């Protein structure tokens, strides 16, 4: 099973988590055109390679976090945390 590194709990089975998919910033529903709104709802980059995605540690610390994953090799890594210049992979 995919072992997902939660930044708080460490590696946990993917079955302990909820998968959130590609992060996209939501347009303002009051000003977005129907086309902008549907683009946000439906269109995806769906890249083969390193991607950034959302996970939710539903059976653990119940925090949402971002994860970097390689969709072909299965490698996983935590992106650097904000303000933490030494953390993460870079």
């Amino acid at each position, binding site marked *: 099973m995919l072992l997902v590194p939660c930044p708080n709990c460490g590696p946990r089975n*993917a079955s302990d988590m909820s998968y959130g998919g590609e992060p996209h910033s939501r347009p303002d529903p009051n000003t977005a055109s129907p086309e902008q709104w*549907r683009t946000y709802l439906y269109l995806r980059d769906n890249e083969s390679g390193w991607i950034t995605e959302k996970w939710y540690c539903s059976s653990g610390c119940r925090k949402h976090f971002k994860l970097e994953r390689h969709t072909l090799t299965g490698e996983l890594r935590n992106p650097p945390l904000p303000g933490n210049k030494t953390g993460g992979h870079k």
Partner: protein
Amino acid sequence: MGKHKSPARYSAAGLAWRGLRNKSWPRVWREPELKSAYDVVVIGGGIHGLATAYYLASNHAITNVAVVDKAYLGSGGSGRNTAIVRSNYLTPEGVAFYDRSLDLYNTMSTDLNINVMFSERGHMTLAHTDSALRTMNWRAEVNKLQGIDSSVIAPDEIKKLSPSLDTSPNTRYPILGALYHPPGGTIRHDAVVWGYARAADAYGVDLHQKTEVLDILCEGGAGPNGKGAGGKVTGVRTNRGDIHAPVVVNCTAGWASTIASMAGVRLPITTHPLQAAVTEPVKTFLPTVIVSGSLHVYVSQTDRGELVFGASVDPVANYDMKGTLEFTEELAGHVLELMPGLSKMRLMRQWAGLCDMTPDYSPVMGPTPVDGFLVDVGWGTYGFKAGPVSGEQMAACIAHESMPDLIAPFVLSRFTDGTLVGEKGAAAVGH
């Protein structure tokens, strides 16, 4: 324009003649030189790409066509599926479309002169909950209105058709009824792929294996290098050189987004692996195809006697085709809930393929914002059965430069116009 060479015909007499004279069969398709220009380049040598090329040649006399595949023909979903065909979908658009495919499958063995082993054994979708039963009734009514043989049957009738099913009320998910579709069944997927390849080749279509598309050449578009909306396609760049073509068709299923992004087009698709498994062969006991949405499992028995199992897609988007242990474990558990008698059977093989999932479980076909760049993608877990009709209609779309009625509901622009064709109720585990 006729066929430029007829392939060796397959027949019992031919088999006996070659057998007695110790003669082997000729190569099934040529290995042509890669030309620098074609009228149409089809990317993807699965059933959709090959059928599109075949119908371009046979129905519209467009034969200066190349099909390119990065690996071998049928290496994608077309060689990995569980070969279930049916037309009992949920929307009128879906039903009409898949029913045309069944028509084409019915005459395929003679049309393509290859035995595709189409077995109309009947297809049963079990309902374990009231809401599932409601959807089955809804589907049956939509189906009947369009002349499709499809009805809801009760547990005693289910037991008669498939005695190995546990239809008792004492199970965790008792079987409340089923949507029964007698014309549904299975087909030999490899034969279909090879049949289209051989027939297209006979018309002069060039099939290029081990030819990977690395980039799509565009001009005039709003994005970098002339890609993106408002531009037009001029060809493709492959590992074997550039090919010029005014029309490029993306038939790459699980890889569809990677090809579309080379033209600056975004698709409403995420790629998920779908796994399947097969047991050792046993004496035939399972006459129909059985699908259970609530238990996320479906099963059929091949002519050789193996049981073929499938489930729903892996939850996490991925381009990796590795099988997982949790799939086998879950599958076995659910299969035993349906058919406790199988507990001693051994699994022989397990594999995965990539599925191009769309938000409404319907495909994406026809033009894109880049002129000349067409798509026939979004086939998810159910696209093999749609191969023949898709090829026929995509060929008409290319030849007449307009969308035929049968596939007009599936245009890419429906996602920005908000006119989705919701097939989730009939396709999520249904295949």
